[in-house]
C-alpha cells in the first residue's frame, strides 16, 4: 500500500534561533507560518535597509511618525500592498486594512491573503507601535 508524505511546500528559518529540544536543531517554519513571518519581515523592513537592494521594504516606519490622518492611512495601506505584490509572489492579496488603536497608540494591520494555488483565505494581524 502506497504511503503519502506530507511534503512541505515552503521551509524557512525561524529567526528566533531557538533550539528544538528533540532534534537539537534550530526551529524551522513551514508553509503558512513561513509566509506569515515573511510578510511581517516585509512590512517592518525599511527601504534602503537591505544591502544593495533599497527597493525591498515599505515606508511604514517613516509614515508612523506622521500625524495619523486618512491620507496617511491610505499611504500606509498602499506601501504595504505594493510591497507584498512586488516581493511576496507566493500570495495573492485579498484585502488589507489598517485599524487605529487610539488608546494604545498602535496601528493594527490586517492582511487577508490566499496562496496562489489555493482559495483559502488566511488572515494575519500585526501590531505596529511607535517606540521612539
Amino acid at each position, binding site marked *: 500500500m502506497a504511503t503519502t*508524505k506530507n*511534503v*512541505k*511546500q*515552503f*521551509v*524557512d*528559518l*525561524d*529567526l528566533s534561533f531557538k533550539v528544538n529540544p528533540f532534534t537539537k536543531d534550530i526551529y*524551522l*517554519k513551514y508553509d503558512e507560518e*513561513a509566509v506569515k*513571518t*515573511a*510578510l511581517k*519581515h*516585509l512590512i517592518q*523592513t525599511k527601504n534602503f535597509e*537591505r*544591502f*544593495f*537592494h533599497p527597493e*525591498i521594504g515599505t515606508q511604514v516606519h517613516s509614515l508612523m511618525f506622521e500625524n495619523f490622518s486618512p491620507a496617511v492611512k491610505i499611504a500606509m495601506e498602499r506601501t504595504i500592498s505594493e510591497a507584498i505584490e512586488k*516581493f*511576496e*509572489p*507566493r500570495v495573492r492579496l485579498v484585502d488589507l486594512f489598517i485599524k487605529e488603536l487610539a488608546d494604545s497608540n498602535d496601528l493594527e494591520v490586517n492582511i487577508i491573503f490566499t496562496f496562489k494555488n489555493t482559495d483559502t483565505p488566511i488572515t494575519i494581524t500585526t501590531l505596529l507601535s511607535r517606540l521612539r
Partner: protein
Amino acid sequence: MANYRLSELDFDEIKINLKQFLTNYRDKDNNLVFKDYDFDASSISILLDLLAYNTHYNAYFANMVANEMFLDSAVKRESAVSIAKHLGYTPLSYRSARATVSFTVPTPDGVPGTLTMPKYSPFTTTINDTRYTFVNLDAVTIRPTNGEYRFDNVEIVEGQPLSYTYRVDVSGPDEKYTIPNKNIDTTTLRVTVQNSYTDLTSYTYTQADNLSALTPESKVFFLEENPSGYFEIFFGDGIVGKKLLPRNLVKIDYLISSGDVCNVSGDITQTFTLGATIGGQTVASSIVASVNSTGGDTADTIEKIKFKAPRFLSSFNRAVTANDYKAIIEANYPLVESVAVWGGEENDPPIYGKVIISLKPYRGYVVSDATKNQIKNDVLNDKKMMSIQPEFVDPQYLYVTVDNKIKFDPKNSRYTAPQIEVLVRAKIIEYFTTDLQQFNKSFYYSKLSKAIDSIDPSIIGNVTAFKIHKRITPVIGAENGYSGSSVIKFANKLISGSIISTAFYYTVNNVVKTAYLKDVITNATTSTIDLLDFYTDEILVSGIGSVNYTGGEVTFVSLNPTGYIENALDIRIYSKIEELDITSAKDVIIVIDDGTLYTNSKRLAGLTVTVNTV
C-alpha cells in the same frame, strides 16, 4: 558534489552562489532543508543578504589590499607615495614661481659701504587681478658702484613665508617633524637647529639626497611625504647623518606657494613693488622684472608619482645615459612637457664632451635661461659625469597649418553645421595636444582623418590640406645668416614652388619695401629663393636664399630685414610637403599653428574648418 564558483566579487553573484549551495543541501529523504531563499521577504533571504554582504566586504578589502601594494594598481595617494619611497622617489611639492629683478635704492643716509636687503623682503605683483607676494630667500648684500646702490639680478620667489619651531624630545630618525601645510614649496625649506632655549648656538642643516657621502657629523635632514599628504623631516641616527639631542630646537622656514597661477608669459611686462625699506630708503617706483615669474606648479598628482618613480629608480639618481637625464629632469622640474636628450657625438655637427638637452615647457615654446641654469646647476651638477657638460638647445618647432573640409549630412545628425565645426576643431586640437607636441612624434594623416570621421555619423568624409612652416626671428637691421648649423630645417621633403613667407619690411636701394620670400623653381631638388615686392610681385633681390627640397632645408646667407609688419614678432616660411605624413626628429616637435589670418602679411590662419552640407 556541486561545483561552487568562488571568483565572483559582486554582492548579487555571491548571493546566487549561496543559493546554489542551498539547492544541494538536502535531508535524508532528499528533500530540500530550506526552500524559501528565492523569496526576498523570507528569513533565510535576509540571512543570505548578510552573508553575501560579509563576503563581498572581505573580497573588496582583499582586493584593495592587493591593489594598493603595487604602484600600477594603487588608487590611494598614500599607497603610491609609500611605494615611491621604496624606489627612492619623494613626490614633488608645490613649486613657487620665480622671477628676477634689478633695481636701484636711493643713497641711504651716511652712505654706508654695504647695503643689505633682508631675507623675505616682500615684492608684490598683481596677476589676473590678484595680488601675490614674492620674497628673496636669502639676504642680499651689495656694495655701491660709482655711488649707486644697485641690486642686480635678484631672484625672488612667490609665496608666504612661514616658520615653525619644534623641540626635540626623542632624538633619532623616529621622531619626525611634520610641516603643516600641503602647499609648501620644499625647495624653499630652510632648516636650522639651535642647541637649546638657553644656548642660542645654531647650525644650518641641508637636505640629504644621497646616503653615500654622509658621515655621523653630516648636518643633514631627510624629507618625505607622510600618509596624510604632509611633508615631514627627520634627522640622522648618528651613523648616517648627525643625530639631534633632546632639547635641541628645530626651526624650519619655508614658503607657502600659490603654484602655477603665478606663471607669467614672457611677452607681458611684469612689475613688482617692494613693500619694505632697504637701509631706511624706499624704492618708490615699480620694479620691472628682468625675467618674469615662471616655474610655478602644483604638487605631484598620484598619476605623476606613478609615472616618475620607476623612471627615477632606473636612473639611480645618476645622470649617465640619455634616459637618466630625462628621468632626473622630469623628476625635478615638473613644468617640462617633453625632454629630449642626446649625446654630443650624435649632434649635427658633433660636439664631443657634451650632452645636448632640449626642453619643451607646458606653456610657451622655450624654457627661460634662468630655468636652464637652475636645472644645470641645481639638478644636474651633482649627478652628471664629471667630464660631460650639459648644453641646452631650444626645440625645433615645426608648425602645421591645417585647412580641413568636412562633408556633412544634416539628415543623419543631431548637430548643426556650426556645432560640427566646433567639434572638428576640438578634435584636431586634441590630436595635436595628445598625440604630438613631444619630441620625435610624427604626424600621421590617416590617424587624424579617422579621428575626425569618428566624431559623428553625419560626417561623411573629410579632406585635410596641410602646410608646414618654420618661424625665424632675425635681428632687425643686422645681417642674419641661416646656413651651416643654423640652416632652417623642415625635416620633410618639400614641394617645389610651394615656399612662401609672411611679409616684412626690407630696404632695397635705400627704399623701405614691404617684401616676402618665394622660391623660384629651377629643378626638382634645389632652387633659389627671391625677395619679392608684396604688392607688385616684382623681384627685389634675386637669389637671396636657396632651398633643398629633398633635404627640406632653406638657407639664407644674409637676411637683413628692416622691420616686422605691425605686431608680428617673426617671419614665417610656409611650404607644402610631398608626403601626407609629417616626419619628426629627435629635436623636432610638431605643433599646430596658433596663428591667426592676416592677409596684409600673407599670414595664414592656423586652423581652418569648413563644413559643406551635402
